[in-house]
């Protein structure tokens, strides 16, 4: 058995510092295991948020050696253990304590997005018919586990702090899942352009790179939404048509 050092952020919104903890590591361990071991043996009050420990709930998001990661899916053998492994909280959200951030903003954002509105059922028994081919597009978006790592890495939120004007990649994925849902009848393009700030995204694809569910966020969700906005609001023919109608 060998040991490794973890440089973990300890503190609250009022300040804090990195502290080094050395603990034993064994085969197959992930970063979350090391954090738990440190919590149980050296720092009982170390704050860390986690649930399933299997990459399915998206609770244990943090930055490991500077990259946004799920701690439960980051194996130690993929990290250079000869130097300390830094573990710090996500930077795009206010800190609560240690590794735990206040992600409640995300929940408020979702509430502001126009909800699912299905068309009338296709069959007399109140059910619908959908082709597997048509649902697969949406199923990709619905894999999202709401870990918010894409929000954390997005420079519009992380660096420019435009939380009031921009809903972030997670919620463009959410909006795309609704917009492309075969049964949905609502139209969210105006709110996407005006209230949700889809124009701020300049397609650097950082979100796609960090997504633990490997959702092709930029290409499959954000770009098609941008296209819809352009088609509806800026297409000269449509614009002309609208002018005449009004």
């Amino acid at each position, binding site marked *: 058995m060998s040991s490794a050092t973890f440089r973990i952020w300890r503190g609250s919104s009022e300040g804090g510092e990195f502290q080094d903890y050395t603990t034993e590591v*064994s085969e*197959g361990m992930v970063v979350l295991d090391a954090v738990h071991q440190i919590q149980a043996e050296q720092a*009982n009050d170390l704050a860390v948020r986690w649930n*399933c*420990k299997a990459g399915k709930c998206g609770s244990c998001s943090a930055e490991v050696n500077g990259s946004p990661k799920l701690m439960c899916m980051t194996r130690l053998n993929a990290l250079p253990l000869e130097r300390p492994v830094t573990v710090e909280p996500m930077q795009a959200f206010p800190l609560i304590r240690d590794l735990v951030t*206040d992600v409640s903003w995300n929940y408020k954002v979702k509430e502001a997005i126009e909800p*699912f509105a299905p068309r009338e059922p296709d069959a007399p028994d*109140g059910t619908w018919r*959908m082709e*597997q081919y048509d649902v697969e597009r949406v199923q990709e978006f619905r894999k999202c586990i709401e870990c918010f790592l894409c929000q954390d890495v997005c420079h519009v939120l992380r660096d420019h702090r435009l939380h009031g004007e921009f809903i972030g990649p997670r919620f463009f994925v959410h909006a795309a899942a609704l917009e492309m849902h075969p049964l949905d009848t609502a139209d969210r393009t105006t709110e996407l352009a005006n209230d949700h700030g889809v124009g701020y995204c300049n397609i650097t694809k950082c979100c796609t790179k960090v997504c633990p569910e490997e959702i092709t966020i930029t290409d499959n969700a954000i770009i098609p939404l941008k296209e819809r906005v352009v088609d509806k609001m800026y297409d000269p023919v449509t614009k002309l048509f609208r002018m005449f109608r009004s």
Partner: protein
Amino acid sequence: MDNESYQSSEYDVLVIGAGGAGLRAAIEASAAGVSVGLICKSLLGKAHTVMAEGGMAASLANVDDRDDWTVHFADTMRGGQYLNSWRMAELHAREAPARARELEAWGAVFDRTKDGRILQRNFGGHKYPRLAHVGDRTGLEMIRTLQDHGIHQGIDVRMECTIVELLKDGDRVVGAFGYDRERGRFRVFRARAVVLATGGIGRAFKVTSNSWEYTGDGHALAYRAGADLMDMEFVQFHPTGMVWPPSVRGILVTEGVRGEGGVLRNSDGKRFMFEDIPELYRSSTATDEEEGWRYTQGDKQSRRPPELLTRDHVARCIVREVKEGRGSPHGGVFLDIAWIRKRLPNGAEHIRKKLPSMYHQFKQLAGIDITEEPMEVGPTTHYVMGGVRVDPDSQMSTVPGLFAAGECAAGLHGANRLGGNSLSDLLVFGQRAGRYAAEYARAQTPVEPAQDQVEALAREALAPFERAGGDAEGPYQVQFDLQDMMQSQVGIVRTQEEMRKAVDSFEGLHARAGRVGVQGNREYNAGWHTALDLRNLLMVSEAVARSAILRKESRGAHFREDHLEKDPELGRLNTVVRCGEDGRMQVAQEPIPEIRSDLQQIIEDNK
């Protein structure tokens, strides 16, 4: 602390727990026009429902039109070895299809049949393909659908909040007392009715698929409020959890792997499940590998392979193989889905498509490509069939105003739960609990909980901080010791002698739990939270052990090496646990209500 004011809220219905059952209950109560508070121990949408993989059982008959509610009912009763509440099994089988369709109306996107309807898959103990699913992430689809629908229904959601105790006025439950995790501030919730939907007790065991939250909170809150618990000896050990590497031991490997054609082999390469097929299932099990394969590929004339027998049986067969020296290198057996590449031209792609999160999970956590090589699997604590004893129709417990739904309620699953029946359980009985809690609440006047009761609870909750420092033990070691003890002495294979030892050790563990100290302050302090959860964990563990001692037979998930056979007398009795007037735990056996004759006939017809 005396000057601390407690933030107080008032609702008609307070729902504790925000997994599938809690969310469904809250949505229903809110639709009934009453005010609803919803308490999540974690963030919204992270509860254990998210982990459910295989699917949701409902006799939609989209894939096999021979299916209907009567067959689902009979399958559920057979799986539960007839200890089930027959009324709950009936309601569940009848109402599950409507609850599944409703999810679709709220935006769920299930996999489709060729004619565009909800696709259904095979699962252990279900006669026909019955599980509506989305690949192997059905639970995520379900909780996200309920969450995204629920947030527009005017429900007041309290995230990261833990309930420490229910508040009572005389016999009636009138609210709950808890704290928010973020700052550690105390909270008083007044309510005319309370619904418990807190899930299971998996953290009482060392090897478990359950997260830190599953400390039996609802079971313990109900018990301390005077409610009966029932059938606590029945703990489901899922046959296929990961066994290697050590840090992922216990993480679930969905039954869907076997549903898609995965087979279990021992170290000799033998499919050992063919060797021991219980009498109850002989006529419905394939006689050879060929027939089993045809079944998994949808051939209606074929019978299921023995890998799809009920979970209790498969788990014990795995334990036997390991014990007799035919296990895999890390103490499990082999689960092989890669072999289907010999049968299907696009096998590897098929596996990645049907089992994407399993592919991902093994690739990332164990460095194994499941389309190339077999997985190593072994049993893991997964689910508790026992729980709060409820009225089958309304889900009200034996305490007025206190309801329970989902895993923390007893009755539906009897001695063993069929895979896929949990997600449908959450919806069917979540909906019912929400409806009846709202109805009950309307008829009540609100009551102000007694201030001295609240203050006493606050003092008790803060006591671990006062004991910090010196030689006070931390909470984690007590929890580890309890988990070790339950795993080894009240686990898959049980004996009188070991369980007696377990019961004797509770006194010592209780005393240690009562002395633990915690460092730091009240903000997001996991040590403190663990210290407070300990007494719930100890309470439910003791209920499991004492109930298991009383049931001197082997039935369903409860297997006793010293009583290998079923006892027909005990098959007519439920085990009931309640808190005696002296504060000691009482365990008794009470007769199951006589089954309605039309339902008995359905069982006979499906034998």
